[in-house]
């Protein structure tokens, strides 16, 4: 493994067990994904709700344990157990969608921010740590920063609080940051402040980021590479611009042709079935086949593997020949 790789994921699976009338069934939230992230790279994860993109984030941040597969972080295997050494814990941070849910409502901003610093031994004492927090608040455009220390989460707007959750993660100088739909509940006019802060801080520390989103246009200009997920599997992976402007997998094509845009549209590519299949009743073959307008007989029998169709552009579809 060379040194530019920060994280490598091999055949990662996460199944949730369901019991209905004593019968066991599985929700295959993440179903055998493999990819890597380079140092300083931003990988966009694109998918609709329920495709398993958030579960992937939770498994990589070691909040959920995987069912199968390997996660290699900085040349060290971190899968197998949720127990991690402190340095690795510090090295992997996550930002969630709703900041009002990810802050303790009874703690002031200062109290919330000081805990991670204390745990990881950053700063000598409380006043030292407060200086660090003030410095970061200043960087994030909170003026005057001291006015925000004693505030509670509900006293801040969604955009402000989300900026603070970016700070909370980035204060620890992690080398891998997972941002799970971190601007999707924010208004258009305040999204920029969160995204710009995120980009500033991650590029300063050369932090790699996994940006989970359902918004194609956002994923396109933010990410270096883009992975499209459908029912727990990566169906397309490649350079962000390449994937969004020249999609190869039928699902990506449909997704892009259906996303509302301010530009005039070309002809829409229609899925065959209106309703999507769920994780439980996936049959043999390609999981997208029942909805795919280009599906052949073969697609219902054999599961396609991800392979390089064009240079550095991987697709899992039987319509493309090796």
């Amino acid at each position, binding site marked *: 493994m060379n040194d530019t790789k920060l994280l490598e994921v091999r055949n990662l699976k996460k199944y949730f067990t369901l019991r209905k009338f004593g019968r066991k069934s599985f929700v295959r939230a993440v179903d055998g994904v493999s990819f890597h992230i380079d140092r300083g790279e931003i990988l966009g994860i694109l998918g609709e709700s329920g495709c398993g993109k958030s579960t992937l984030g939770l498994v990589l941040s070691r909040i959920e344990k995987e069912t199968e597969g390997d996660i290699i972080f900085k040349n060290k295997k971190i899968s197998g157990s949720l127990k991690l050494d402190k340095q690795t814990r510090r090295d992997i941070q996550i930002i969630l969608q709703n900041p009002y849910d990810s802050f303790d409502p009874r703690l002031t901003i200062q109290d919330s921010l000081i805990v991670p610093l204390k745990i990881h031994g950053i700063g000598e004492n409380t006043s030292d740590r407060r200086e660090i927090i003030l410095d970061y608040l200043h960087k994030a455009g909170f003026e005057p920063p001291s006015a925000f220390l004693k505030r509670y989460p509900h006293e801040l707007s969604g955009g402000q609080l989300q900026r603070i959750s970016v700070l909370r993660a980035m204060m620890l100088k992690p080398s891998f940051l997972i941002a799970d739909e971190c601007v999707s509940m924010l208004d*258009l006019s305040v999204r920029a*402040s969160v995204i710009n802060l995120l980009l500033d801080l991650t590029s300063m520390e050369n932090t790699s980021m996994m940006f989970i989103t359902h918004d194609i246009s956002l994923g396109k200009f933010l990410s270096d590479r883009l992975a499209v997920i459908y029912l727990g599997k990566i169906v397309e992976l490649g350079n962000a611009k390449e994937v969004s402007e020249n999609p190869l997998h039928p699902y990506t094509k449909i997704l892009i042709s259906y996303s*509302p845009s*301010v530009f005039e549209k070309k002809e829409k590519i229609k899925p065959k079935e209106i309703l*999507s299949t769920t994780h439980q009743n996936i049959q043999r073959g390609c999981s997208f086949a029942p909805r795919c307008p280009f599906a052949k007989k073969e697609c219902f029998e054999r599961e396609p593997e991800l392979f390089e169709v064009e240079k550095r552009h991987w697709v899992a579809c039987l319509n493309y020949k090796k």
Partner: protein
Amino acid sequence: MNPILEIMNLTVRYKIKNKEIHAVEDISLLVNKEEFVGIVGESGSGKSTMAHAIVRLLPPNAYIKNGRVNLLGYDLINMSDEEVMKVRWKDFSIVFQKSMSALSPVHRIDDQMMEAIKLHNPQISQQEIESRLDKLLQMVNLPKRVLKSYPHELSGGMMQRVMIALALVNFPKFVIFDEATTALDVVTQGQIIEEVRQLVKELSLTGMVITHDIGVVNELCDKIAVMYAGKLVEYGPKSDIIHNPYHPYTKALISSLPDFIKERGEFAGIPGNLPDLSQLPKGCIFAPRCPLADEKCFEQVPSLLRNDDRQVACFKVKEVKT
């Protein structure tokens, strides 16, 4: 062309404790026959309040300060609740965002739809109702079994289709879509937009689409009205508003659309926050956040200026145009 909807100087306020929230301030708007108008604004801009005021469904703590609403010849503001109930859902209806809470969880879909038909057509025969329900389901691409289902048995996209069918149950002439596709997946949303566009043609509907997604408005509407902090700041044909906005707020909003962003550094947004709607500032409501504001903007309120088919409320329009 005769207007279907005529709003004149509509002002709606909420009473919360001792405060008066200026949710909708002095809005005037015309919607012509077979026209679809998109109301665009961020959260807190008063767009939903305005829609609910039009169909007389405001919560008890809201009241209409003044103004007139003339919809299909009905003087809605001065009608009694009983009179409104006779025509609401028959001549005009609304599709809500939260279909889960808008539908009764303990009644089957067909019972809920039948009630809405019977209420306004007491003489109708069972056969006629059934054929009408069949037709409606076909229009929104739902299988027949949906009729005998309860809401919890349906997916989000199916439920939203049920809501649309329910709004069209008496073939109204005017329909408001209040964030009707916001919570849905991209592909589902795209399909519903297509279906609605088809229905608009078939039933020669007039309507209003309330959303924060300019892409959705572009796909569905003819005109766009931009609201900011309870005020109408700009109104005109959609392509003019999107590709050649006049008002500084519209300009900033459009330029923070990821669609228009090519590079990571270009993401601008709008600095500052919404003003406190219980204490409106003197002068233009957008002045504190406006890059062009001068003394006059902080002193006087700009009125809506008309220029051909476009309207804009800004003293700086000449400068904005160039």
